[in-house]
């Protein structure tokens, strides 16, 4: 295990503690880690966007070895999407902001044209066709019953969102089954969400454990870093307890 890896991991563990400290209360350590995260993400994204997007798909296609003032020789027609991209920056001008509407209109036109037919076909028509099917008992009794429940659930759920008629009588009963179906769906999503959030915490604890192991197996220097780190955490916790006790004593005296 190299020192470089160990120190980077130590930094990530320190930032994890800074972030989790928010669960206790807002504090400068949390603010620091939050600001660092936002800054690093923005910087990383900008560089990635430049070197993965703009350079290979625009600049390298226009300038293929020729001097920068000479656009012919490469795929010079790429200058037009480049100009459209530059026009977007007029968003920041109050007077010339209208210029940015042209590339937006261009982009919206292409995106809408590409998206609407495919979205309708794959996320509406296909879903409808595959929902309203005859129950398939040949795949097993449970599968057949499941098909029936899905059809009933979908129809009742749609009834619930039909607000032109009062939800009373038979219609109200069907809508009620619809809302129960929705609640079961939300429950399943909530269960998965809890698992997801806990997973994130477990992974951090696993990383901290591995870092401690790494420190104790990596020789005296790394072990010392782990102990100093642990001491710092304990000191911070003790300082917070003392502050809390002093505050409570002041309140009692008052």
């Amino acid at each position, binding site marked *: 295990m190299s020192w470089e890896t160990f120190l980077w991991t130590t930094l990530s563990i320190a930032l994890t503690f800074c972030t989790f400290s928010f*669960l206790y209360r807002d504090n400068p350590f949390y603010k620091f880690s939050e600001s660092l995260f936002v800054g690093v993400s923005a910087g990383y994204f900008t560089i*990635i966007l430049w070197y993965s*997007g703009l350079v290979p798909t625009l600049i390298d296609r226009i300038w293929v070895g020729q001097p920068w003032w000479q656009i012919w020789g490469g795929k010079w027609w790429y200058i037009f999407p480049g100009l459209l991209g530059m026009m977007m920056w007029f968003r920041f001008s109050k007077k010339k902001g209208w210029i940015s509407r042209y590339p937006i209109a261009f982009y919206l036109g292409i995106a809408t044209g590409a998206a609407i037919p*495919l979205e309708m076909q794959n996320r509406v028509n296909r879903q409808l066709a595959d929902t309203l099917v005859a129950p398939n008992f040949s795949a097993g009794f449970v599968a057949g019953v499941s098909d029936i429940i899905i059809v009933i659930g979908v129809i009742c759920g749609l009834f619930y969102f039909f607000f032109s008629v009062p939800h009373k009588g038979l219609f109200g009963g069907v809508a009620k089954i619809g809302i129960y179906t929705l609640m079961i769906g939300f429950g399943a999503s909530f269960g998965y969400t809890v698992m997801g*959030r*806990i997973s994130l915490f477990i992974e951090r*604890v*696993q990383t901290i454990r591995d870092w401690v192991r790494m420190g104790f197996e990596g020789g005296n220097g790394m072990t010392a870093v782990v102990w100093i780190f642990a001491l710092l955490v304990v000191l911070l916790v003790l300082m917070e307890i003392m502050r809390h006790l002093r505050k409570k004593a002041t309140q009692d005296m008052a």
Partner: protein
Amino acid sequence: MNFFERLSLLDRRWVYLILAAVVVITLLIKFATPIRINPEVRSIYDFVEARKPGSYLHMAIDYDPGSLAEMHPMTYAIMEQALAKGIKIIMTALSPNGPGMAEQAMLDIMDSVRIHTGKQLTYGQDIVFLGYKPYPGIVILSMGQNYRLSFPSDYYNTPLDSIPMMKNVINYDNVDGIILITGTSGVDFWISYANGRYNAPLAVGLTGVMAADYYPYLKSGQIFGLMGGMLGAAEYEKLVHRPGRAMEAMRVQVWTHMIIIIFIFIGNAGYLISRRKGGVR
């Protein structure tokens, strides 16, 4: 004020502390939790197993460090299985902070396969990483025509035509399937564009938060497999007989979920008792 009412007024930080204690204790104590394999996870495993050596698989690594906990175990398990079988992998990352995730996974897995199977993998012959491009919808559509439209060169700036394993690969027709591991809504683009427009066989590994929303696509056959969160990752690790962080995490999940259920029960009981007494409405 009775017991339930007092508990319902408990400072939420105690709940965090109890959960943290349960996570730490259950991680330190070693015990196994039974993991049942669901058909939607097995279908991905069977698909990879059925591939012949030399066939191609597209791994779309579309997640950020924020969802690494659930996504990395899936990526590692699938890619190790595929590379050990001699399947060639084309990797892309269409999430802004995804390239770091994909590169880390690729390098780790190449090492891991060498250690476990003795197989020396070569970048450019067994695996290639094309990198990141913005606007996932447009990139997914363009890869259906030709990978070179969006990725004239790979992540390390090597032209695609100079990479041995990419010489005969034009578009999705040349890959056996796409396995998407994602924590973003970009999954909709993959379903509508890669599967819907180009009929590319697609399987997905999703975060727990997203998983429940995508089961309808499994039923309609638009995706042939689905791994949901840490559970999906643990099931896959079990299938490939490579217990990792996900399988270990499942025993922690069991206990934390029990604690959460107890808290929900106490909170609701406190609320109902208060309401009966004419307190909270």
